[in-house]
């Protein structure tokens, strides 16, 4: 229950950080945030702090949350609101970003979570200190089959049409194979400058508006001192082959490396 408005509220958690005195000033500076535009504040327990804001219980209770997550428009609003807070915090200090829609009943619930997980925070945060996440996506871009006589034009006959289709499929297969080879090179070269890598599912569907077929969707955790070398390595790879495109996103707060599963799966560069 919010003391200010008397409306029933829940506690939305954005990120966890080491407890330091300046957290309150950082929270105040960010002001009203999140899906309900309520003040960001720090809830503390056992040397750790969670950045939270109050959200209305009707929209963030189990039913409300389910409805929000099932509606792409509302999901986008929530995701962007969450990201805005995490990105702003991450620009200031090392934080452990929470998964979307981490909602607790009240401050006591958040303190309980901090106390329960306290031992896991330090190794996770240590791994994120001084590092940022970059996304690298590799796409296959099938080219028109240029060796077909009537490429681009109408087929003169049924046989000609079939030949063109076959050449096109072959081009697609080749391009896909080259893109997969490129993904391996990206893992090898970019991996030299990253301390960890996570594979996300290749992107597809209406939200994936990029041209071509996404063959690899990778995330790398890169130390600040290695960022230039990491980018240079990718730039060098990205310009090599036609039919393959490499796209870099970020820097991101280290969402992909904030899970204990990611910590176990990480591949260390030598």
């Amino acid at each position, binding site marked *: 229950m919010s003391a200010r408005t008397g409306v029933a509220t829940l506690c939305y958690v954005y990120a966890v950080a080491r407890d330091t005195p300046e957290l309150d000033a950082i929270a105040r500076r960010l002001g009203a945030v999140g899906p309900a535009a309520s003040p960001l504040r720090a809830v503390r327990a056992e040397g750790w702090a969670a950045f939270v804001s109050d959200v209305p219980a009707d929209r963030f209770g189990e039913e409300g949350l389910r409805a929000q997550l099932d509606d792409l428009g509302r999901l986008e609003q929530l995701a962007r609101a969450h990201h805005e807070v995490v990105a702003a915090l991450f620009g200031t200090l090392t934080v452990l970003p929470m998964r979307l829609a981490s909602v607790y009943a009240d401050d006591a619930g958040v303190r309980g979570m901090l106390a329960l997980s306290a031992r896991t925070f330090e190794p996770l945060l240590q791994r994120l200190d001084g590092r940022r996440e970059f996304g690298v996506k590799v796409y296959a871009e099938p080219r028109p089959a240029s060796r077909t006589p009537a490429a681009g034009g109408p087929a003169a006959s049924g046989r000609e049409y079939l030949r063109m289709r076959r050449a096109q499929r072959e081009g697609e297969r080749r391009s896909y194979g080259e893109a997969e080879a490129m993904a391996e090179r990206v893992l090898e070269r970019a991996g030299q400058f990253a301390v960890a890598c996570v594979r996300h599912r290749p992107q597809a569907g209406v939200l994936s508006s990029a041209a071509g077929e996404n063959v690899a969707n990778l*995330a790398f955790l890169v130390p600040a001192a290695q960022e230039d070398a990491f980018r240079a390595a990718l730039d060098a790879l990205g*310009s090599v082959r036609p039919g393959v495109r490499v796209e870099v996103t970020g820097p*991101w707060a280290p969402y992909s490396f904030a899970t204990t599963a990611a910590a176990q799966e990480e591949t260390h560069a030598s």
Partner: protein
Amino acid sequence: MLPEPRDAAPAQRQVALIDLLDRLLNGGAVLTGDVVLSVADVDLVHINLRAVIRSLGPGAPAPW
């Protein structure tokens, strides 16, 4: 491939929703305690959403 200026704050640019959802629904710390909606439920929602997104897209086979 356009390198971003090194000091660009992540929040200053509009990121692609699909890149954001990859991270916010698969990444991020999942902690125990008195959560309103369990993580397994969120995963289920995610899988449903993925199915919806994919079924509306071009008919490529699912990679998983």
